[in-house]
């Protein structure tokens, strides 16, 4: 079946319909990761958006449920050059076609995704429509497209009730460690096929309680902490600061999430209260933006954002550059940042935008990129170690 992608500037792409049969209007963004389409699809930060994968061959290894970053896909639509006819991976549970259909996600394939990316790069992120209606009427559609906003998406993606994650008692709870000699010689001989390769080598967080505020959290944030031995309690985004503080966590983790940070007025108010405590806080992506807003800084929308697994970020303290996983359309404005409140800690090497803040005189540090990876490079996983150290320092003080 034919499908069409119509952009708010009137650009039209004709392709083949994939996934669920449904017409959607959404914000069109592109992601440059070459692998990890399932992690992208299940990242709640994409709520309210339709994602175009710039890598042309998608679905090659099917859907491996273990790799999902939440229990369902969140984007409104998926835009690809080509979906693989068969999936090939030993863990594959179903095809991407089945997954999209089952979860009611429509999409379009067979379009020139590079041409689309170039348009978004030049003109900035735009709204668009995916439809199978061949009799579409641009005059009727375009005003609708222009009117679309992602709205208060955090409310949709956050968990309904708080819950606690089981904690790794020893390293083997994380699955045998990839590359470890223990796994190689013994586990393999016993016929164990590792399911969750983990790069964690020590349980440094045992005995620490972390409160994770779920603003649309990717599963691997909680997993990264639990894998290191932290006891993680996940709270819905509408939880009050008081409830979290009363639980006496050793640290608070603010997660990633979708949408315009300025829409989250109530969450910002609560975070301001967390800011005023002396509980160590680590925040990622939307959490980072909300903390900045809570502390009086500003954010703005980028032309087309950062979405992919190849962005270099520089740690301003050490001068080291890390390749990071990213997914954000908004960024903290450091131009008017009060150094008495916070200092830039990380910067994007490509465009100089802010990638992290260190809060002056407080146990708070926040990053714009994704140390939990999934998809993307795992180079920044030791930021969780840094958070754990921070919690220990506070606890032992």
């Amino acid at each position, binding site marked *: 079946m034919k499908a069409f992608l119509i952009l708010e500037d009137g650009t039209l792409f004709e392709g083949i319909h994939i996934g669920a049969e449904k017409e959607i209007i959404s914000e069109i963004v*592109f992601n*440059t*990761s*070459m*692998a*990890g389409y*399932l992690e992208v699809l299940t990242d709640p930060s994409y709520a309210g958006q339709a994602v175009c994968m*710039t*890598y*042309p*061959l998608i679905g*090659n*290894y099917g859907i*491996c449920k273990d*790799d999902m970053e939440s229990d369902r896909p969140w984007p409104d639509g998926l835009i690809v*050059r*080509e979906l*693989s*006819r*068969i*999936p*090939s*991976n*030993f863990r594959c549970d179903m095809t991407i076609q089945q997954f999209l259909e089952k979860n009611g996600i429509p999409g379009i394939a067979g379009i*020139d*995704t*590079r041409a689309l*990316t*170039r348009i978004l*790069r*030049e003109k900035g992120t735009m709204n668009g429509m995916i439809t199978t209606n061949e009799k579409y009427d641009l005059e009727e559609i375009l005003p609708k497209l222009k009117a679309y906003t992602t709205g208060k998406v955090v409310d949709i993606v956050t968990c309904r009730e708080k819950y606690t994650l089981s904690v790794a008692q020893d390293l083997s709870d994380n699955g045998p*460690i*990839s*590359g*470890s*000699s223990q*796994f*190689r010689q013994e586990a*393999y001989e016993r016929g164990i*096929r*590792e*399911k*969750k*390769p983990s790069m964690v*080598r020590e349980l440094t967080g045992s005995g620490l309680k972390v409160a994770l505020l779920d603003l649309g959290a990717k599963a691997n944030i909680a997993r990264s902490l639990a894998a290191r031995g932290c006891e993680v309690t996940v709270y819905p985004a509408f939880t009050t600061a008081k409830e979290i503080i009363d639980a006496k966590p050793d640290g608070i983790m603010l997660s990633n999430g979708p949408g315009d940070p300025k829409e989250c007025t109530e969450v910002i108010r609560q975070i301001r209260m967390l800011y005023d405590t002396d509980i160590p806080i680590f925040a990622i992506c939307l959490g980072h933006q909300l903390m900045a807003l809570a502390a009086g800084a500003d954010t703005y929308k980028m032309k087309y954002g950062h979405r*992919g*697994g*190849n962005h*270099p970020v520089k740690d301003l303290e050490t001068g*080291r*550059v*890390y*390749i990071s996983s990213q997914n954000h359309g908004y960024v903290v404005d450091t131009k008017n940042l009060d150094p008495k409140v916070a200092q830039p800690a990380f910067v994007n*090497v*490509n465009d100089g935008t802010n990638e992290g803040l260190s809060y002056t005189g407080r146990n708070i540090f926040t990053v714009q990129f994704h140390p939990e*990876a999934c*998809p*993307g*490079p795992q*180079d920044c996983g030791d930021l969780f170690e840094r958070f754990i150290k921070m919690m220990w320092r506070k606890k032992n003080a």
Partner: protein
Amino acid sequence: MPKNPNVKRVLVIGSGPIVIGQAAEFDYAGTQACRSLKEEGMEVILVNSNPATIMTDGDIADKVYIEPLTAKVLEEIIRKEKPDSLLPNMGGQAGLNLGMELDESGFLAKHGVTLLGTTAKTIRKAEDRLEFKETMEKIGEPCAPSLVVENIEDGVAFAHKIGYPVVLRPAYTLGGSGGGIAHNQIELEEILANGLRLSRVGQVLVERCIAGWKEIEYEVMRDGAGNCITVCNMENIDPVGVHTGDSIVVAPSQTLGDKEYQMLRSSALNIINELGITGGCNVQFALHPTSFEYCVIEVNPRVSRSSALASKATGYPIAKVAAKIALGYTLDEIKNAITGKTYASFEPTLDYCVVKIPRLPFDKFITAKRTLTTQMKATGEVMSIGNNFEGALMKAIRSLEQHVDCLRSYDFSALSAEELKERMKIVDDQRIYLIAEAIRKGVDYDTIHEITMVDHWFIDKIAILTEMEARLEREPLTVELLKEAKRLEFPDTVIARLTGKTEEEIKTMRYDNGIVAAFKMVDTCAAEFAASTPYYYSVFGSETEVEETHPKKKVLVLGSGPIRIGQGIEFDYCCVHATWAFAREGYETIIINNNPETVSTDFDIADKLYFEPLTPEDVENIVNVEKPDGAVVQFGGQTAIKLTESLMKMGVPILGTKAEDVDAAEDRELFDKILEETRIPRAAGGTVYTAAQAKEVANRLGYPVLVRPSYVLGGQGMQIALSDQEIEEFMAVINRYEQEHPILVDKYLQGKELEVDAVCDGTDILIPGIMEHIERTGVHSGDSISVYPAPTVSEKVKETIAEYSRRLAAALHVIGLINIQFIAMDDEVYVIEVNPRSSRTVPYISKVTGIPIVDLATEVIIGKKIRELGYEPGLQPAADYYAVKMPVFSFEKIRGAEISLGPEMKSTGECLGIARTFNEALYKAFLGAGVNLPKHRQMIITVKDADKGEAIGVARRFEKLGYIIYATRSTAAALREAGIKARKVNKIRQESPTVMDLILGHKIDLVIDTPTQGRDKSRDGFLIRRTAIETGVNCLTSLDTAAALVSSLENAASQGEMTLIDIATIARRGKA
């Protein structure tokens, strides 16, 4: 970190002659590194024995030494030039080994020379099997269970413990020389013995066989501050067991999820960090297909063939960045040359799919085993880019120029499904065609996967292509079907064949329906940032990104495709120089080529680069978009010449010598007419199509005769026939492929062979010098030792050659380059063949005479005259030194290949010896080719009857040098009769000890074996020669070569100091 202020004079080591496993990629890396160093204001001193390279040009480095790559020579150069630093990791394994040797001996420290880039300690950690394994264990990165052994007993015991099959990998060898998989003890003992001998340190790794696992590679970069990135990952379609150089490789990996991708990426970064590599590095993994278990196969702590491929696949210039890192820069300080905005500290992301296919030499060595193993056999490779895998595969197949253009190009349709299943067990270069046929015959994916271990995903892609073939055959050709076929990159020729239409009809249908190629950009970032590099690939069904360019004159330079025997990097040298010369003259330049190893496909050589197959259709797609003012075909070897007619049909003017004149040189009748008019003699001959005609001509001329196809390069298919029977045999080989042009049968003349490369401007001719071949006619010019200036011919012959060259160039209206080969018998000169285009000797003669003939040819093509360019026409005065070009072979890599020299070219590369005297030049050339004698002072001579007289002279001279000479019965008798104390040794099938035992005893320096004429594969001689080569014993099949070798050894014995000649000085003198 800013650059290190103590680095000012850098010595760069190149990789030497091209051999299998070490090819043009190091010219690319070295050239990039040198340019990068010069950009930083460094003075660059370059050493490389290979004269065909671009890196050995006066404009690439400040000082250029084309000298043998030995520690002794390097020490001399260091003493003379006093560099403060040495960059060893651009010259492949050869360069790295040499750098290590100098470091270990303490010479570098003593002379205040710092090793730049990766340290010696790191190199040892990565290259020494034991240290590497220990390091991997320390950081918890798994290796396959393995043991380093130094003798056979330990190897056998360990293999018994871990179970067969086992893989054997000798330490410190290139291209996996001497390695292999042993399935039982007998095989183990054989391979192990050989590997122990070939290893520089006498170590071989015996390890658990992980054949059948996915083979995945990562190209990683690390700077001195510890910042790491991966440039690219690649997946081999052929699983572990086939050398990655012989595998079909796809980038990025296709069947890995993010978990696997990141697990291996993290591992690669862990490893590069632990090893402390600064610069580029290649990490190879084996990944279990149904688990997360993986093993590190090996790490190359330097630029490599894979890094060249990764650079071209992503647009990230690894060698250039590595050179900057060596100077102290960090990745975030180095600009990304493609975007001009971002920095080198990012990871390229692809929005296309890249396929590499190796170019295997089985069309040259038709007797060789086609089986692929862990020992690399490919001489070159092609790369293609598309936005789907099927299309990229189809483009790569037709880029190979091996009479293949689709998955039906090898016809296995006669095999049944059962036979195919058996046949697929053999791992060879035809496997994808077999898989395709198996799919056609209904063999299911699981079965194919079980036999080949090729991933289901790739099998399905091959199936998509076979399904399209079937649809084209059965269904009416609708616009939709044609669109889909083009999306899968079916060329018009194949569509025409399958649909029964003509190519013209398909093209018309395409154009009428707007089905034309679009061009996309390789930009390192999947269009995230605007890029300014004009590096393009074609796809169907998309919008084009090529921008209308400024109104300069626009010239198309056609490249020479994959490196193969007979068409090597010499032609890339010519293309690159021509491109630069056109640019200097104000032209906009466009290169089309498909070889990822070369300098010409570096994105900053031409104004625009099109990475595309060199077929008429693919070129036409580009012509339609670019509308060039002209094309040059004379620099790109046969690949480019073959496109002449098609270009003319497209309306593109051919710059330089006209196509009809090129034809006149190839067409027997036209050429004979020209020779008659110009009164130039040649050997009598005739043109034929069939064996019967050939026999008739041969009998008229009298045997021996030379049989060869026309319009070929490198003497492909050329043979000397002695009898009707051999004529039949050779004609059958030539006619394996349908011949468009007649086959030539000529009387074979045995004399001195001479060669010139010249530039002609239509009026005047400039001949830089005459080259003389050491071997008599009958040995292909590319396999002969070539000497400039010609040492043994008379002035009269030289004058005649100059005169004939002038007449021929005039008669053929040559504008640009011409190569002519002559035979001199006494003072009579005959012409053998004329090629109005660039030749293999062009870089060599340019460098040793200092006359940049490619530049001059380009200027002449543009319309300048030789006199305007500051040169006096005619034969130039001879130099006051000698330059010897020595062929280098890779016979040990190709099991079953006949090594005896003949009219068909077999060498893969060349090196140069240059010195004040002929003998010293000869000595250096042999040394450069790896002939470092004497060692044991024992040799074997076994020659055919006709050669016995001459063999005596040679043997006597060897005896004088202290050699003990062993000879088979009749040769021994002849030698003894002449008073030489030859020891008789039994023939192969006689009682022990035989010739074979002697060779296998590793006490022999040299075997001289002149084969009885014709192909004697079944005879003893063949066995002796193969055994010698595989045992690492020098083996010569021409007495001329043997005489040259003994002269060089006599010289070495009598001489002390070596002279060093800076080629850059010659170049500058030449230009003045």
